[in-house]
């Protein structure tokens, strides 16, 4: 599969235009001064009234994206109680919405990787159960790789056999879970290659309780990789991973403390 043309195209379809639109109901002073936040506040979050930037929403990433197809990000809202969901997004890029995390019984904290298109502000928008929106930001420079893929080979012949393969495990004592799902995560922005993405991943206990849930969008990296965080000692012996992609392929796996391959 050809992946680099996809990235070039993504560069070309998006020009950083100043969009003429109405002001949001609550106008914020954007600490990143990106010029796009008002637009996303309306389009992505639905123009909520009760919204503000909040230092307790921590977004950490590299200063510069070395591999534009695999930019790591750590979103940590564990200083906030009562989190319903976290929307992670990029201000600039052909598809702003990266993912939505529903922490359920996990900490409101998630590690992820995504595809970056250009230097941009990255946001984590936290919605609480009592209807507040609290926003955190960081800025990631992509001039060092930008739209250009670095020196990796992305072509592979055996991706179909590996589709849905899961690597991962739990660390109950430290409350960590790590999961990597083999999937192309094609954005659909390239001619002839339709959108092909995992749409959701759920994490359930042995008893079938929903522990955490992720909704994925096109910018999530190829072979999505997530870190989930639980209060130390609260994880049982296993965590069941369930999901599906937009072609109806099921994803199933079990994370445990086992170190064996």
């Amino acid at each position, binding site marked *: 599969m050809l992946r680099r043309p996809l990235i*070039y195209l993504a560069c070309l379809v998006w020009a950083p235009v100043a969009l003429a639109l109405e002001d949001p109901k609550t106008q914020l002073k954007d600490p990143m001064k990106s010029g796009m936040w008002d637009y996303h506040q309306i389009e992505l979050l639905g123009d909520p009234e009760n919204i503000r930037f909040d230092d307790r929403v921590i977004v950490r990433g590299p200063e510069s994206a070395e591999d534009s197809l695999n930019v790591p990000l750590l979103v940590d809202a564990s200083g906030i109680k009562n989190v319903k969901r976290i929307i992670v997004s990029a201000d600039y890029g052909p598809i702003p919405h990266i993912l939505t995390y529903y922490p359920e019984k996990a900490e409101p904290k998630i590690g992820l990787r995504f595809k970056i298109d250009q230097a941009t502000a990255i946001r984590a928008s936290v919605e609480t159960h009592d209807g507040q929106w609290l926003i955190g930001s960081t800025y990631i420079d992509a001039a060092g790789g930008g739209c250009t893929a670095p020196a990796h080979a992305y072509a592979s012949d055996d991706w179909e056999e590996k589709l849905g393969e899961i690597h991962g495990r739990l660390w109950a004592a430290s409350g960590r879970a790590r999961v990597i799902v083999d999937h192309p995560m094609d954005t659909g922005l390239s001619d002839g290659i339709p959108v092909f993405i995992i749409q959701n991943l759920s994490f359930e206990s042995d008893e079938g309780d929903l522990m955490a849930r992720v909704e994925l969008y096109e910018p999530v990296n190829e072979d999505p990789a997530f870190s989930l965080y639980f209060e130390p000692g609260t994880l049982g012996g296993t965590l069941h991973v369930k999901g599906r992609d937009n072609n109806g392929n099921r994803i199933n796996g079990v994370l445990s403390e086992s170190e064996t391959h």
Partner: protein
Amino acid sequence: MITRRYALGLLGAGALAPRAFAQARHVYDLTPVQIADGMWMIEGSTDYFSMQNGGAIVNIVLMKGDSGLILLDSGPSLRYGEALTTVARQLDLRGVTSVVNTHHHPDHFFGNQAFADRPIYALGETLAAAKAEGESFADAMYRLLGDWMRGTEVVPPTQVIDGGNVMIDGRAFHALPLGGHTAGDLALVDQKTGTLLTGDLVFYDRAPATPSADLTRWQQSLNELEKVEAAQLVPGHGPVDKTRAAIPQTRGYLTWLEDTLRTAARNGLDMVEIMETPLPAEYAAMGAEPGEFHRSVAHLFPGIELQELPRAN
């Protein structure tokens, strides 16, 4: 290419480049220092590519041949290659008559364009990799260096060199066809002076760069280099080594890097958490740190993590 013109257009508009540098004159200040009989080195900065250094971060060696100078690695841009042409004529009126590329990274061969009508030697793997990856390197270099790159086109090496004893323009070398920093890394022993020219298999007081690395093969190559009885060693980046310290330093760093990433994967850390780990003092003091470590996490961790984490279905 559209992407490159786009990048330069942005720079011209002042959207990306710090203004002071965008308006500064783009002139490379190259100073050859004699390091042996008939051998000069232009020592690069130990920093990463920047608008300030124009990508002049690489060590260049010039050696007397029968018909002129033999150039080992050609720098990051056409403009750099042209500056080398001028400097070479001051050492030998006949200038550069042959070129060797140690490997296919852009700082080592993007000056080839200034010597396109002369033989340019490299390993077969380097020739193939320069053709396969040259254009994507060029895009990245235009974005990193802006106007310093103006006019630069990818000119891959033309002549394949093999291992063993080779003559280049009447000068005798022992060629070691190695790899691990990239798919093909050429080291040369200059027979006349006993100088070991390692390319980027060895870094000295500058963090090793890993965008194309195979760490296991790199360590094997270092073992081969360790066997060479050399009077001095010229690394790809960093000062001349006369005390046999550079190879153990490179080996130590690569061992530490791999151990750090594997341990992190086994403990469930992800890349951002690893990048925030402080470096040991001996490595923190190296040129280009901690940036090079952060880039290595991006290059190497996804693959290492898949090896370390168990299957879950």
